């Protein structure tokens, strides 16, 4: 069974962390992964940085720009992750925009992920239809899950379709705002969480965007299997360094 599914089957709510590979320093990637695992994080999204991350807010964009400047690229990341699987048991997901993956070659990219032991990919700008028509079989051959997003404006019909074709989890975008983390959620967001909850989807949902502290974490996990923290985590290591990871994670739960 895919490590993602295994994790999702566990009791309790999941905390997943997104960070940008190569940030703050080129060689921090592996260290951050270890520290996250040690802190009890359930899942990790390793961000493959892109020059034009148009679904991300300024924090992630700045970290991506910096990481590319630091020298991060696809091959370099694969090299960093080469021997990691032996030491990390939690699911590892690569999250990145489609163009760098396309340039690497989608098949080569998937093969490499499989070899390293990556469990899944999140590619926000790869449309579902296009994925199904062109890449689905490649992903399956390489035992890679491709996780899809849903957002507040996504229609019920489309959510049901996404549910029906999903592996692993659905990445549920908490709001239509990508300007980074907030301290609380609006009534409309809570309505949205409840509405989706009531749909009784077969696929577990993890909520991301706008989660960044204990309060928001506790809120979203009421309506889902877990939460993804991205911007807030990056902001923390920008301000307090990689050493502060454990205490940051402790502050969340």
């Amino acid at each position: 069974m895919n490590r993602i599914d295994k994790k999702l089957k566990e009791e309790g709510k999941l905390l997943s962390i997104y960070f940008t590979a190569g940030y703050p320093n080129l060689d921090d990637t592996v260290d951050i992964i270890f520290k996250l695992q040690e802190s009890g994080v359930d899942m990790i999204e390793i961000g493959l940085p892109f020059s034009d991350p148009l679904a991300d807010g300024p924090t992630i964009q700045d970290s991506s720009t910096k990481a590319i400047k630091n020298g991060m690229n696809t091959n370099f990341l694969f090299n960093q992750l080469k021997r990691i699987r032996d030491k990390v048991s939690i699911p590892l997901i690569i999250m990145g925009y489609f163009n760098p993956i396309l340039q690497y070659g989608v098949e080569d990219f998937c093969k490499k992920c499989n070899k390293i032991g990556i469990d899944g990919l999140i590619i926000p700008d790869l449309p579902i239809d296009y994925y199904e028509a062109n890449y689905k079989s490649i992903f399956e051959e390489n035992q890679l899950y491709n996780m899809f997003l849903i957002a507040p404006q996504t229609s019920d019909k489309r959510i049901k379709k996404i549910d029906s074709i999903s592996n692993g989890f659905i990445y549920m975008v908490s709001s239509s705002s990508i300007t980074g983390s907030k301290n609380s959620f609006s009534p409309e967001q809570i309505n949205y969480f409840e509405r989706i909850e009531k749909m009784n989807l077969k696929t577990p949902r993890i909520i991301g965007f706008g989660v960044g502290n204990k309060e928001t974490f506790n809120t979203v996990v009421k309506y889902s299997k877990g939460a993804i923290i991205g911007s807030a985590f990056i902001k923390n290591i920008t301000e307090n360094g990689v050493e502060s990871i454990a205490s940051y994670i402790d502050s969340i739960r």
Partner: protein
Amino acid sequence: MKYTVDKKGFYGNYGGAFVPEMLFPNLDELEKKYKKIINDIDFQEDYNNLLKDYVGRPTPLYFAERMSEKYKSKIYLKREDLCHTGAHKINNTVGQILLAKRLGKKRIIAETGAGQHGVATATVCALAGIECVIYMGAIDIKRQAPNVARMKMLGASVVAAESGSKTLKDATNEAIRDWINNPVTTHYIIGSVVGPHPYPDMVAKFQSIVSKEIKSQLIEKEGTDSPDYLIANIGGGSNAAGLYYHYLEDKKVKIISVEAAGEGVESGKSAATSVLGKTGIIHGSKTLLMQTKDGQIVEPYSISAGLDYPGVGPLHAHLLKSKRAEFMSITDSDAMLAGLEVSKLEGIIPAIETAHAFAAFKYLDFKPNDIIVVNFSGRGDKDLNTYIDYFNL
């Protein structure tokens, strides 16, 4: 060979809508409604009335006598420089604002580089009384101060894109982000035949008025509706799309697309996507773009702010690959000299974008009876400072 968009939003191998899920509903709504709306008689009437009384269409097809003499052929200029706000860009924004109203949108966003599309957008928003936010790279805001002032005079907010290279590409990212953040209230007016489906097709349709007019104008002037050459500059490719639209299937008509070579194709400071680009994804579209081998988008360079886009619209990628269009790359210095030449021969100062198209003449071999139609995409007023500095005027 088909040159119009297919049902999935592709031109051959190029196009599509590579956007995050958050934008899916917006694009889905657009895709489902745009054809119906713009083919509606009521819409057509409003659109055509505005084109006539507000934009100043039809724009003349002007026989350039002195240019024709110099280049020994029959050269016609399609005078988009005479459009309200000074370039072809407004053909598109007038169409999109009417569309936005019919979609019930209350707010407009747009990206701009040189500021020409920003001005055209701010203009139609003032006309419609709709809130308008223009994203513009922080560097471009400094470079193009007069156009920033125009937008503000028109009541628009101009927001600086401080990310990345702080130019057009980044302004586009910021506009897309805004749209993600405001999916219900807001319509995004893209300024060229780029971006996710259905934008390239929609913008091309709004610009197609250009070749539609040329057809009847040429019959009046030359007794034939098809020229031997169509020549246009290509930034994203909207003025070119408008010029070519009704001639795409007419293979007798040669198509020349002129890109900015900047300081030279091999100089490292260029925007010649046809030579330097590879297939990739930019701003939601699969097309040719300039990128590193890792797939990071490269910052292009041209003296012309309207041509330094790292990609071309998917239609143009398709026209290139299918050999329907021939691409040429013109350096800054060739373009600047051509701009000066046209000014002195015809009394019309071209935008530096437009000047690129004229610079191609000396590399082409026209026959005396060849009918050449050039899209005079915009006037040079916005570029005066660049001309002044370059020629020490």
